[in-house]
C-alpha cells in the first residue's frame, strides 16, 4: 500500500495543527457555529444526535494492520469501544468529544491516517473495488490512479467549497464492484486497442433524493490526462452547479439540467484550455506510486491443495464459508477472504476494539499485514494462502466474523440510522437485525442465494437502498417512522435503480414483507435465476400482489 514520505506526513501534521487551532478558536468563541461548521466537516466531524461523529478516511479501502490497531486504540480511549465501517470505505466513531478530536487526529497522523475531506462540500474519499490488485477479472489496477487522485484532490484550493459533496470512484476490473455509474465521477480503466491504459468517464450518477445513473461523457481518455479532465469537470460544476438549494446542488442535477451532451461539450471546451499542462501525469510519477502496490512477494504455489479439499469435503460449515466468503485470486495458491461484519444481532459494519485487534492479528499472520474495507461494510484479507484457509476460518469463527453470508440476504448494507444520525428519518439497524433474525436458517439463506438487501434511514441513501435488489428506506410521516420498499435495484455493470412496490410499512411489518418478496421469488424463479433476474424478467407486479394482496386494509398510504 502507499506509504507516506516526508511531504505527505508534513501535510497531515500541518492539518492537525491547523484544526487544533480552529477548535481552540471555536471553543474560545472566536469562531461562530456557522464559521466552524465547514472547517470541522472537512476534518470529518459532524455534530450528531447524541454526540459528535468523527469519520476517518480509508483511502480506496486499503488499511494496514497497524492502522487498524490504532483505530482499536482510539475506540477504547476516545470512544465506547467500537467503530462503524461505512459504505464509503470510511470508518466512523460515534462518541468522540469535540475537544479531543484534535488529539485523535494527531494519533491518526502517526499511522498515516486522517479525517481530511471525509465530509463537507468537497472531493471526498475516493473509492474502488475491494479486490483491486488481486481479482482475476482485473484489467488495470486502479489504485495508483486513485492515490494520485487522492493527493491531487487533497486541499485542492479551487474545489474546497463546491456546491455539494463530490464522490469519485474508480474501477479497473471487468465486473464493476465500485459502482462507478452511481458516483459524481466514475472512472472506468481499461486497455485500449493499442494496449494502453485508458479511461471511460461517467458523470452525474448518485443516490440520495434524486437517484440517477451516470452518463458516459467520454469513452476514451489516455491515463495521462486523468487529473486535468477531472479538473475540467469540477470547474464547470463549481461555476454552474446550483448553490441556492442544497437538494439540487449535486452535479447530477446540473448534468440533467444541461443534458449530458451539453455538459460534455462544456467540459471538453474547458479541458481544451488546460490539457497537456503540468498536471499531466508522467510515467515516472505513475511508476513511483504504482511501486507501492506491486511490492508483494507471493510464493510460487500450486493451486491444488489436497488438505484443503479434504476439509471441504468433511466440514460442511467450512464448505459453506468457502462458498460465500472466499474469492478467486489472480495468483495460484492464493485466495481473498471476506470477514463478515454482519453476524445476526449486531449492527452491520460495527466492530469492537477487540475484534479490530484480532483482525489486525489475522492480517499480519495471513495476508501481508494488510486488509481492505468494502462498500458492503465487510473486511477483506486479500492475499491468503489456500493452504491457510482452514486455520484462518477457525480463527475467524472465534472472532465472530465468519458468518458465511457474503452476498446473501443477511449481508445487509445499512447506515447508522436514527439511533445515531441526526439526518435520519427512521431507525435502520433494528430493521436489519429483525430481518437477520427472521432469516437465520443457513440452508434457506444459501438456497435464496445472491441477494443485496440495503437499508437507508433517510433519503441521503448512505445505505445504498436504491441499488439494493431489495431496498428499504426510512421515511417520516407525521412524526412516525415508516419504511418504503423497493425491488429491482442493482449495482455493478448493469446498474439500476429500484422501483417502489407501494405504500410504506411500519417497522415490525418489514421482515414479513421481505419474506413475502422471497416467497414470490422462490415460486417464480427458474433454475440458476437470482432474485434480481426474476424481478427483471417478471416485473414488480407479482411481488406487489403477493405483498399487498392480503393486507390491503392494513397498508398505509
Amino acid at each position, binding site marked *: 500500500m502507499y506509504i507516506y*514520505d516526508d*511531504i505527505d506526513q508534513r501535510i497531515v501534521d500541518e492539518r492537525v495543527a491547523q484544526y487544533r487551532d480552529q477548535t481552540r478558536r471555536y471553543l474560545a468563541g472566536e469562531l461562530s457555529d456557522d464559521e466552524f461548521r465547514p472547517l470541522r466537516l472537512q476534518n470529518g466531524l459532524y455534530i450528531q444526535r447524541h454526540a459528535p461523529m468523527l469519520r476517518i478516511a480509508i483511502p480506496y479501502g486499503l488499511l494496514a494492520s497497524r492502522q487498524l490497531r490504532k483505530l482499536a486504540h482510539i475506540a477504547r480511549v476516545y470512544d465506547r469501544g467500537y467503530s462503524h465501517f461505512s459504505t464509503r470505505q470510511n470508518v466512523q466513531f460515534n462518541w468522540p468529544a469535540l475537544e479531543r478530536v484534535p488529539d485523535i487526529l494527531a494519533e491518526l497522523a502517526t*499511522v498515516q491516517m486522517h479525517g481530511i475531506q471525509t465530509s463537507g*462540500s468537497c472531493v471526498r474519499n475516493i473509492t474502488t473495488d475491494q479486490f483491486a490488485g488481486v481479482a482475476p477479472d482485473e484489467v488495470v489496477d486502479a489504485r495508483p490512479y486513485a492515490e494520485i487522485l487522492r*493527493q491531487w484532490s*487533497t*486541499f485542492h*484550493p479551487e474545489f474546497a467549497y463546491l456546491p455539494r459533496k463530490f464522490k469519485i470512484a474508480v474501477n479497473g476490473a471487468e465486473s464493476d464492484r465500485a459502482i462507478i455509474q452511481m458516483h459524481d465521477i466514475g472512472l472506468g480503466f481499461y486497455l485500449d486497442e493499442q494496449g494502453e491504459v485508458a479511461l471511460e468517464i461517467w458523470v452525474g450518477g448518485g443516490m440520495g433524493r434524486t437517484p440517477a445513473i451516470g452518463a458516459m461523457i467520454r469513452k476514451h481518455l489516455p491515463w495521462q490526462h486523468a487529473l486535468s479532465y477531472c479538473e475540467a469537470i469540477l470547474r464547470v460544476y463549481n461555476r454552474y452547479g446550483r448553490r441556492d438549494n442544497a437538494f439540487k446542488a449535486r452535479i447530477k442535477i446540473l448534468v440533467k439540467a444541461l443534458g449530458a451532451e451539453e455538459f460534455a461539450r462544456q467540459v471538453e471546451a474547458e479541458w481544451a484550455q488546460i490539457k497537456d499542462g503540468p498536471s499531466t501525469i508522467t510515467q515516472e510519477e505513475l511508476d513511483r506510486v504504482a511501486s507501492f502496490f506491486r511490492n508483494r512477494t507471493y510464493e510460487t504455489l500450486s493451486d491444488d491443495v489436497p488438505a484443503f479439499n479434504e476439509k471441504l469435503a468433511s466440514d460442511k460449515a467450512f464448505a459453506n464459508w468457502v462458498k460465500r466468503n472466499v474469492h478467486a485470486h489472480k495468483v495460484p495458491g492464493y485466495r481473498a477472504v471476506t470477514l463478515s461484519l454482519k453476524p445476526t444481532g449486531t449492527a452491520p459494519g460495527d466492530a469492537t476494539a477487540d475484534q479490530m485487534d484480532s483482525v489486525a492479528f489475522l492480517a499480519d499472520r495471513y495476508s*501481508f499485514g494488510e486488509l481492505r474495507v468494502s462498500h458492503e461494510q465487510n473486511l477483506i484479507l486479500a492475499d491468503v494462502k489456500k493452504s491457510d484457509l482452514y486455520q484462518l476460518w477457525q480463527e475467524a469463527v472465534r472472532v465472530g466474523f465468519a458468518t458465511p453470508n457474503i452476498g446473501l440476504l443477511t449481508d445487509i448494507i445499512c447506515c447508522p440510522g436514527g439511533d445515531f444520525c441526526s439526518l435520519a428519518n427512521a431507525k435502520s439497524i433494528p430493521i436489519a437485525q429483525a430481518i437477520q433474525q427472521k432469516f437465520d436458517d443457513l440452508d434457506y439463506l444459501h438456497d435464496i442465494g445472491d441477494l443485496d438487501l440495503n437499508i437507508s434511514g433517510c433519503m441521503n441513501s448512505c445505505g445504498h437502498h436504491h441499488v439494493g435488489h431489495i431496498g428499504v428506506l426510512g421515511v417520516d410521516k407525521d412524526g412516525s417512522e415508516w419504511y418504503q420498499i423497493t425491488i429491482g435495484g442493482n449495482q455493478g455493470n448493469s446498474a439500476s435503480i429500484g422501483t417502489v412496490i407501494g405504500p410504506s410499512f411500519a417497522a415490525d411489518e418489514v421482515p414479513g414483507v421481505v419474506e413475502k418478496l422471497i416467497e414470490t421469488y422462490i415460486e417464480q424463479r427458474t433454475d440458476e435465476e437470482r432474485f434480481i433476474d426474476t424481478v427483471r424478467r417478471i416485473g414488480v407486479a407479482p411481488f406487489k400482489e403477493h405483498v399487498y394482496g392480503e393486507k390491503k386494509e392494513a397498508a398505509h398510504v
Partner: protein
Amino acid sequence: MSKLIRNNAIVQDDWAVVQLASPAEETVRKQAGKVVIFKLTGEQAASAEQIAGTNIPPGGKVIVPLAVWQARKEELAPRLAAGEVGLWLETFELVEDLVASVPDLNSLPVIAVHFPRPVDGRGFTIATMLRTRFGYRNEIRAIGDVLRDQLFYMKRCGFNAYAIRADRSAEEALASLRDFSEPYQGAVDNPLPVWRRHARVAAAHAVTVGRTPASHEDEVD
C-alpha cells in the same frame, strides 16, 4: 472598516469599494422558509434603477460594481485612464463578462471578488481564471465575508489581497497564509504538482507502516 492584507503585509487601503444602491423593493427569495443566500451563476446583479442610483465618490480610487461599470463606462473612462478605477464582481457574475467589458484587462489596477459567504467556492474559480485564462497581473482582492481559514486557498488561486472582515484580526489572518508548506497539486501560485517540484520516494525506499512486526522482531523504523 476592514483591514487589508496585500502581498503578505497589512497595508493602508487607498481604494474605496463602491456599493450598489439598494433596490427600491427588497425581494427576499425563500425556499422551505429559508432565505436564499446564493444566486445562480449568470443572474443579473442589479436593476437599471440601482445602477443609476449608485453613488460613486467624485474623486479618489474607486472599486466599482461590474454592473455599474458596464452601464456607466463613459462617465468613468477618464478615471480609468488615470488608473483610479477597479472593478468588483459577485461570485454569481460571469468572469467572461468582466473581461469583455474592458479593452485591456490589465488597465484595471484591481479586481475584487465579493464573497457573500466564506463557502461560496465560485470566487476561487473566478480568480483562477483571471490569472490563468485571461492573463490578469494586477491585484485580485477578496472582499465580503473573508476569514482567515479560507486565505490559504485564496492565495493559491491567485488572490493577493484580502479585506479581512472588520471584526477579525488581520495579524492572525496573515499567519494563515502559511498554513501548509508544500501542497500536493499545482495551482495559480505554483502550477507544478508536487512530483514536478521534488524527487519523491518510491516503495523500495519507503519506511514501512504496513505490517506490524511480531514481538520477536525488531521494528524497522
